[in-house]
């Protein structure tokens, strides 16, 4: 009998979303795995962690966000010249057999990497998690207006970076 049946259910329900969020935030698959493991170790050690949470997905994404922010902060203060976050980036989309689609996904992944992490987190939750601005604000612990403005700035930058390719593919 498994020691933590809830842990498996939580993994099956939320690990994919956490993976996508963390990969978009860190841009590195190894960091994503480390952070994901860190979250599940925390859940295993503190069995009552999710009891008070109304929305498990939002709570887990908040844990993931905090863990990723901590990781970036540690990296920056320990090694000021560490530029891996912007230099080497793992693509966060499925590769496509269609060369145009493949090019767009690659460019989109690169463009997302050029957004500040705060904007990237909001854009991700809005576009790929379908969160409302109120939910994003609650998850990331920011005012709702801030969430909306970060999304607008992030989307404008993506539009600007991808416009030539997007227009060409129309």
């Amino acid at each position, binding site marked *: 009998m498994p020691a933590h049946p809830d842990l498996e259910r939580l993994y099956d329900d939320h*690990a994919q979303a956490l993976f996508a969020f963390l990969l978009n935030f860190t841009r590195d698959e190894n960091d994503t795995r480390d952070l994901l*493991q860190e979250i599940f170790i925390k859940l295993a*050690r503190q069995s009552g962690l999710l009891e008070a949470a109304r929305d498990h997905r939002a709570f887990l994404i908040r844990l993931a966000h905090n863990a990723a922010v901590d990781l970036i902060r540690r990296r920056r203060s320990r090694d000021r010249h560490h530029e891996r976050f912007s230099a080497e980036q793992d693509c966060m*989309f*499925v590769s496509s057999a269609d060369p145009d689609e493949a090019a767009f*996904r690659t460019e989109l992944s690169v463009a997302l990497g050029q957004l500040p992490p705060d904007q990237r987190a909001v854009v991700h939750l809005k576009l790929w998690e379908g969160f409302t601005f109120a939910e994003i604000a609650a998850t990331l612990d920011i005012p709702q207006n801030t969430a909306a403005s970060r999304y607008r700035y992030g*989307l404008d930058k993506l*539009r600007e970076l991808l416009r030539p390719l*997007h227009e060409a593919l129309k």
Partner: protein
Amino acid sequence: MNNQDEFERKLERQPQRQIPPAWRAAILSAAREASASRPGRRPVWSAINHLFSTLLWPRPEAWAGLAAVWLLVFGLNFAAREPSREAALRETPPAAQMRDLWRQHEQTLAELVGLPERPGMPHRKMPPPTPRSQRREDFLHA
């Protein structure tokens, strides 16, 4: 959302990479092991060590520099502090020396006033002052 434009919809449709299936067993296994091997209470030394590393972690050299400055300030303060009362008493001359000094001082004063005074000579006692009217009577009856 009604006001979404075509660009946003296109972004939404992009399929995200799937989490590698092999991660599931590894992550859940690591979580279980960490949970099982978790000590009940953290040892005191480990807790202190953790506290110090948390406090000093951001810039250890800055904290070391600050500690060195504090030590320097403490050392300078210690070196420049006023002598203690006992030390001050120890440094005062003995009573015999003080008496000699006082006698020399009296001698110098007497020479300046014009009264030669031998050392050890008893002081002349002056009569107590009397009122002027009394002086006049003394003069008339003399």
